[in-house]
């Protein structure tokens, strides 16, 4: 039996990445042609670290998560190149059922819409106990007790009675707490949260982000936080990767990236956010709209919307590189990084 059971192997060496995605390429075959949803995406996540993946709709942030978890829509989406190394195992090469097995215990995911991810006809307790029973082979009673423990841990009030309720009886924020409880049930090493708070009100959003940060501090798990909202992740993430049209256009420590954006897209995103300083004045949005992946512009995908575009940008795709004289961890995929930084 060549089953992969990483969790028993012990922990990774200090400093080595827990998950290392290298040059990942994903394609979707659609009726209108082949769309390259991810093109050369590379990033590392170290144990205990939070990486924020930011981007607008269609930038490939969710596809990245789906590729890691082997959740790409089977008929049309597939990994066509690159590797996803987890503990030395290349998830991109393994058959789907093996990856799923690994994901059950080591990598967990929280989705945007908790109501459609919970089964409406089973009690919450049953659904929470499922991973314990299926993966760890616990008995009914023991698993139920574990489920109750989880429910308390994610802050559902009156957990003893609520555990027998059905998903529709909970509020949106509580449902997301339940999803998080299910995700952390088997103490994963890596939690991927795909827009975990997008459907929630601001006050609830803050509670959920705090819960995720607290759980991370307790368990020491790594987290990939996928979002379109630059503000939501700023409080909890250490590093950030900005995606545009299937590529990472800038990555680095979140403070460096927000304070000194080296890619015009990052700068544009930051300038687009309404804030108190610019009240009543016009915002400075990015012109145009995100590109169609089926017909990407030549050269840098951002060039039709870029304020500092030149001929090189229209001819050659820029690779991710470090701006001169910058910290090793901050890099941007822009031919004109020098000019963009000079604007600051």
């Amino acid at each position, binding site marked *: 039996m060549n089953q992969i059971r990483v969790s028993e192997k012990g922990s990774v060496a200090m400093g080595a990445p827990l998950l290392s995605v290298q040059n990942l390429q994903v394609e979707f075959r659609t009726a209108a042609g082949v769309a390259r949803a991810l093109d050369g995406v590379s990033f590392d996540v170290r144990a205990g670290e939070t990486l924020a993946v930011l981007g607008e*709709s269609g930038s490939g942030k969710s596809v990245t998560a789906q590729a890691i978890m082997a959740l790409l829509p089977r008929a049309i989406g597939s990994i066509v190149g690159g590797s996803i190394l987890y503990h030395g195992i290349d998830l991109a090469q393994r058959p789907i059922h093996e990856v799923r097995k690994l994901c059950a215990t080591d990598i967990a995911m929280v989705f945007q819409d908790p109501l459609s991810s919970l089964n409406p006809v089973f009690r919450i307790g049953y659904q929470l106990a499922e991973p314990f029973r299926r993966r760890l082979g616990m008995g009914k009673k023991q698993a139920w007790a574990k489920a109750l423990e989880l429910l308390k841990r994610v802050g559902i009030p009156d957990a003893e009675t609520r555990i027998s309720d059905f998903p529709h009886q909970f509020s949106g924020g509580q449902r997301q707490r339940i999803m998080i409880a299910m995700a952390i049930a088997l103490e994963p090493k890596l939690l991927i949260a795909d827009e975990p708070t997008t459907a929630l*009100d601001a006050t609830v959003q803050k509670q959920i982000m705090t819960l995720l940060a607290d759980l991370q501090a307790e368990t020491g798990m790594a987290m990939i936080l996928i979002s379109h909202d*630059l*503000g*939501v992740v700023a409080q909890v993430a250490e590093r950030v990767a900005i995606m545009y049209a299937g590529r990472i256009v800038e990555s680095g420590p979140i403070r460096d990236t927000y304070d000194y954006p080296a890619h015009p897209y990052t700068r544009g*995103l930051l300038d687009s956010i*309404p804030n108190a300083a*610019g009240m009543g004045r016009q*915002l400075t*949005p990015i012109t145009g709209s995100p590109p169609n992946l089926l017909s990407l512009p030549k050269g840098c995908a951002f060039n039709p919307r870029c304020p500092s575009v030149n001929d090189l940008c229209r001819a050659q795709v820029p690779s991710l590189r470090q701006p001169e004289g910058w910290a090793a961890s901050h890099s941007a995929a822009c031919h004109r990084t020098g000019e963009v930084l000079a604007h600051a």
Partner: protein
Amino acid sequence: MRDAGPVLEPLLSVSNLKVAYPIRSSVLRRVVAEKIAVRDVTFTVAPGETVGLVGESGSGKSTVARSVIGLIKPDGGTIEFDGHDITRYSPRQLKAVRRQMQMVFQDPFASLNPRLTVRDLVAEAWRVHPDVVPKGDWTAAARDLMARVGLNPDYSDRYAHQFSGGQRQRIGIARALALRPKLIICDEAVSALDVSVQAQVLNLLQDLQHELGLAYLFISHDLSVIEHLCDRVLVLHHGAVVEEGAVRDIFDHPQHDYTRSLLSAVPVVRPWAVPERAELLV
């Protein structure tokens, strides 16, 4: 209870609005109880002014908007528009009023008929109100409106699905402008848009206001958008107004606990630059 705003007659004045949804018994559909969605809401919107309604989901923001435009019959209170009490207007009477009052919805795709071209979508309102634009001028007028909201007029023969989310919202705005209204109600009009596109649409709304002297009733759960766009703001909580005032006052000196908790939950883009947020950083 108004601040020293413009001394104009209010365009819209809502007083003591109450809306309740009936809760019916399962078999006989008899009304057994009612759920009060909005209670005792009072506010005015002056010509050319932007008033924001904020609150969490279920706070009654959309109910207020829908009763102002006549989609819901209020159970109490009065709604005056342009000097007329429209609370008890019949559908026929409302038709004339709605010309002055238009709405832009959250999901631009769901609110656009997929079988109509942009030109027909914009001209649809003129079919209902034939005296606004003579039929022969529909195409030209629709192209004008498209240009005004930042759409390429050459695309007037395309269908809604051929446009991106931001462009569809521009179509929705063009439709709202077609009858030259005085008031536009924006119900979460920019909430579904990406940040960069959202900024474009917010700018467009501001430009149109300056050009055409429009008043907006702007509904959003996003406080930073409200802060950016609005002159005055009402904070709704469980169907009641807990705080009302000039946007600067509310955001700088919130009086009510609920407003404070709402404001403290707004994500800050650079928390390390705000002293009281920096200490919470992990």
